[in-house]
C-alpha cells in the first residue's frame, strides 16, 4: 500500500516537472529551415561548456538497390577519405586537434556524422562537416583499401557472430520485398563487387542539404549557431533527390521459419511478428504505444513477465529480450529473443513464450504493472537530460523517421494515457501466427575449437 502511495506521488511529481519541462521546450529548442532546404535544430543546454554537432542524412540501407547493399555504410567510411581541400585522413586529424570526439553511423533509415567539442571549437568542426557535404573527393586507391576494412568489419560483427547471423536471416525471411530485408553492412558478395563509382554515385544522389538535418545541442546560443550554419552549410546548393519507391511489404500469409547453423553452444530462438509503427500525422493511434508498453511489461525491468517466467521460474532460457521500435521509416517487427538454458529445447522455450503471451492475451495485465512502466518512462525523461549527446541522438533519429522533434514530448505524454485494456488488445491483435517469423540458431561445434586452448 505504501508502495502505491509513493508511486502516485511520484507520478504527480513527474507530471508537474514534465509540464515545466514542456513549458521551457520552445525557449531552449529552436528550428530553422535554410533556403537550400537544410533543416537546423538547436537545443541550448548550458550545464557544461561542450557541444554535440551532428548531421543526419535521410539515406540509409533501405534506400539501396539490389547488388549494391552496404553502399550507404561504405560511403560513410569514405567520407573520411578527403575532399577537394582536405586530404584523406586529415578530417580526423583536424577534429582531434581541437580535442574533438567524432564518429559516424549508418542504419536502415539514415546515415549520421558527429563531433563533440568544447564550445569554442564548434565552428571549426562545422566548417569541416559542411565541406564534406558537397566536396567529397576520394581516389580509387583509398576506396580499395577501405572496402577491405569494411569487409573486416562484417567478418567481426556478423560472420563470426552467431547472434548477428541469426538476426540477418530473421530479417531476410520476415521481409520479402521491403529493403529492410538486407543487412546494413551489406551482403559479403555485394561488398566484394562494390566499386568506387558505386560509392560516388550514392554520394551524388543523397548528400544534399535538402536531404540533411543538422542537430546541435549544448552550450550554444541559437542565433549565433544559425549564423554559422548559414555561413558554412548555407552555401551548398540544393538538388533534386532520386525518387524513393515505397516498396511496401505485402501482407504475410502464414508463419515462416528459418534455421541457421553456426558455431555456438546454446540454441537461440527469435520470434518476430509484423506490427504497426507510429506514422507521422497519426500520433493519436494507440496501437504503437500499447506495443511499446507491452515490450516493457514483458522485458522492461528485472521482474518483468518474460524474465520472471522463462529465466527465473521455468528456467528454460538463460537470457530473454524483447525489441520493438515504434519510430522508424520502415516496417516494424515485435521481436522476442531467447538464449536457451542448458538442456532445454527450442520447443520448450517457444511453448513458454507462447504461454506468457497467451496470459496477456486472455487475462490482460495489471494496472500496477502498467503504472510501473509509465513511471520509469517519466523518470527516464529526467535522466536523459544528463547527456547532451543523447538528446541530439533522440532529436535526429525522430526527425529521420518523418516526425518533428516537437513530437517527442507528445509521444511520451500519449504513452501515459494508454490503458491495460489497450495493451491486452494489441497482444491479441498482432501477436498471432499469421504474422510470425521464427528463426532458430542450431549450434555447431567448432572444428578446432579448444585444441591447444588450455593455459
Amino acid at each position, binding site marked *: 500500500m505504501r508502495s502505491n502511495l509513493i508511486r502516485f506521488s511520484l507520478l504527480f511529481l513527474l507530471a508537474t516537472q514534465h509540464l515545466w519541462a514542456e513549458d521551457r521546450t520552445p525557449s531552449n529548442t529552436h528550428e530553422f529551415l535554410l533556403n537550400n532546404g537544410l533543416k537546423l535544430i538547436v537545443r541550448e543546454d548550458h550545464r557544461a561548456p561542450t557541444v554535440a554537432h551532428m548531421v543526419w542524412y535521410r539515406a540509409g540501407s533501405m534506400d539501396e538497390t539490389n547488388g549494391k547493399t552496404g553502399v550507404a555504410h561504405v560511403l560513410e567510411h569514405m567520407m573520411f577519405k578527403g575532399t577537394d581541400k582536405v586530404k584523406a*585522413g586529415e578530417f580526423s586529424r583536424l577534429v582531434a586537434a581541437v580535442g574533438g570526439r567524432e564518429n559516424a553511423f549508418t542504419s536502415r533509415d539514415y546515415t549520421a556524422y558527429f563531433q563533440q567539442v*568544447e564550445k569554442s571549437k564548434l565552428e571549426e568542426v562545422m566548417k569541416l562537416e559542411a565541406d564534406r557535404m558537397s566536396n567529397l573527393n576520394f581516389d580509387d586507391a583509398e576506396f580499395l583499401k577501405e572496402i577491405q576494412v569494411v569487409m573486416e568489419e562484417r567478418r567481426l560483427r556478423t560472420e563470426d557472430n552467431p547472434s548477428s547471423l541469426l538476426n540477418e536471416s530473421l530479417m531476410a525471411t520476415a521481409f520479402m520485398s521491403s529493403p529492410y530485408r538486407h543487412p546494413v553492412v551489406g551482403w559479403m558478395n555485394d561488398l566484394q563487387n562494390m566499386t568506387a563509382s558505386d560509392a560516388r554515385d550514392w554520394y551524388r544522389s543523397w548528400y544534399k542539404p535538402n536531404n540533411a538535418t543538422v542537430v546541435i545541442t549544448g552550450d550554444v546560443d541559437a542565433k549565433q549557431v544559425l549564423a554559422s550554419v548559414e555561413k558554412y552549410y548555407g552555401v551548398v546548393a540544393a538538388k533534386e533527390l532520386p525518387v524513393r519507391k515505397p516498396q511496401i511489404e505485402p501482407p504475410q500469409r502464414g508463419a515462416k521459419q528459418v534455421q541457421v547453423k553456426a558455431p555456438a553452444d546454446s540454441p537461440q530462438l527469435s520470434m518476430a511478428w509484423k506490427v504497426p509503427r507510429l506514422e507521422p500525422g497519426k500520433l493519436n493511434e494507440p496501437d504503437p504505444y500499447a506495443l511499446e508498453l507491452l515490450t516493457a511489461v514483458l522485458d522492461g525491468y528485472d521482474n518483468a513477465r518474460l524474465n520472471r517466467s522463462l529465466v*527465473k521460474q521455468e528456467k528454460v532460457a538463460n537470457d530473454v529480450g524483447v525489441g520493438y521500435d515504434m519510430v522508424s521509416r520502415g516496417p516494424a517487427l515485435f521481436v522476442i529473443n531467447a538464449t536457451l538454458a542448458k538442456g532445454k529445447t527450442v520447443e520448450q522455450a517457444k511453448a513458454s513464450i507462447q504461454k506468457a503471451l497467451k496470459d496477456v492475451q486472455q487475462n490482460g495485465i495489471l494496472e500496477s504493472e502498467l503504472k510501473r512502466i509509465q513511471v520509469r518512462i517519466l523518470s527516464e525523461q529526467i535522466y536523459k537530460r544528463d547527456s547532451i549527446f543523447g538528446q541530439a541522438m533522440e532529436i535526429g533519429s525522430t526527425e529521420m523517421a518523418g516526425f518533428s522533434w516537437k513530437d517527442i514530448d507528445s509521444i511520451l505524454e500519449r504513452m501515459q494515457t494508454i490503458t491495460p485494456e489497450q495493451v491486452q488488445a494489441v497482444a491479441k491483435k498482432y501477436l498471432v501466427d499469421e504474422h510470425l517469423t521464427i528463426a532458430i540458431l542450431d549450434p555447431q561445434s567448432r572444428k*578446432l575449437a579448444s585444441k591447444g586452448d588450455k593455459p
Partner: protein
Amino acid sequence: MRLLHQITIFLFSLFGLIASAQATLPIEQLESFNGARAYLVQTKSLPMVDIEVSIDAGDRYDPAGKSGLADLVAGLMTYGARGDKGLLSEAQIADEIADLGANIGFSVSGERATLRIRSLSRKDLRDRVVQLAAAMLSAPSYDANIVAREKQRTITSLLEAETKPEYVLERRFKSMVYGNYPLAQSPSVKSVSAITPADLAQFHKRFYRSDRMIVSIVGDVDQAQAKEIVQNLLKKIPQTGPNIPTLTQLQRSPVEPLSEREVFIPFDSQQAHIAMGMTAVTRNNPDYFPLLVGNYILGGGGFVSRLMSEVREKRGLAYSVFSYFSPGKDAGIFQAGLQTKSDQGSLALEVMSQTIANFIANGPTVSELLAAKANLVNGYPLRIDNNRKLLDNVSSIVWNDLPLNTMEIWTQQVEAVTLDQVTAAFQKYLAMDRMKIVVLGAQNK
C-alpha cells in the same frame, strides 16, 4: 614528416592550447562514516543524484579453485535481501526499484565491486532507494535455489563464451600476462560449480565492510543530505572484520625467448584475433601522464594513432586496432590488439609488432606530441560534462588515492609532458622481449 609538422604548428596557432576557463566543480570530502571515506560533487541543474559505493572486493580475491565467486557475490545482491520489515524477495526488489523510477546495479572488475544507484533527488524517493540499496548491500540472502539457478546461468554463459574467438583470446592472454597473480585465473565450469551458498555468505562477510568501502555522490544534494545518504547506506554494515592477507605482488613480465611468450591457438573463425601486452603501472605512478600522452599517439587516439594508420589506413588490414594501459591501484597492464582475415594474421602481427617496437625505441615526433597534447587538453571538458562522467572521474580519483584537485590540474599535467619523458617512460615500462603474444585463428601458421 616535415609537412605534418607544419600542419600541426599551424593548428596550434589557430586553435591554441587554451584550457576552458570554466571552473571545474570541486570534490568535497565528507566526514568518514564507520571507516568509509565519502565524497561529493554538487550539481544542481537536474533533480537527480548518482551514488556509487566502491568495495575492495574484486575478482582478485577469488579463492583458488573458485574463480567467479566475487562476481556472484555482487551479482546476487539484487536477488533477495533482509530489509527492516523482513525478507525482500528478488521480485519485490525489482518491483520496488521500478516503482521508484530508480536504477540500482552491481558490477565487478579485477580490483573492486561497485554498487551504482541513480535516483531522483527528491527526499522521500531517494530515501526509499537508499534504504533498499542498503538492505541489498548489507544483508543479501543468497537463497540456495537462487544461487543454484545463477550458477547454472553463469556456466551456460561460460560455455557459450568458449565458442567465441574474443573470449578465448582474452582468457589466454590474461592467464599469460598475470602469471602468479590471482587475476590469471578466469571462471570456468569447474570453478563456478565448486561455489556454494556458504562461500557467498562468507566472502560477503569478509569483504563487504565499511573499512573497505568508498562512497562517491554526484548530483542535486547538499553536504548534509549527502552525509545522510552515506549513513543510511552503511549503518548496518560492520566497520571491520578479520585480517585479509595481502595478495601476491603482480610480477613484472619477464624477458623471455619468443617461443616462451607467444602462443598460437587454432580456431576456425573467419578472422584471426591478436593480443599483445605486458604488465605496466599503477594509476598513481608519476609516469602516468607521459604514458597516457604516448599511448594516445601509439594506439589510443581513435582514428589518428600510429597503429590505426599502419594497420587500417595504410593497409586495410583491420576494422579495429588499439592499444591501452589499464592502470589501477595495482599495477595494471598494457595491451594492444586487432582482428584480421585469418590468412592475414602473420602480416598484421608483424605490422603491429614493428609499430610498437619502433615507438618504444624512438618515441614520438615533436608534431605527434603536440597533436596529442592538443587533443587531450582541448578535449578535457568532454570528460566531465555530465553527472555520469563526473561520477566516473570522482570514483577513479578516490579509489586510486589521487589528489582531490586532480580534475583541476589534469590539463596542466598533460601540458607538462615532454618528448623525452614519453620516450623514457615507454622504455622504462615496456619492452618487446617481455611482451606476451596470443594469436588465435590464424590460418598461415
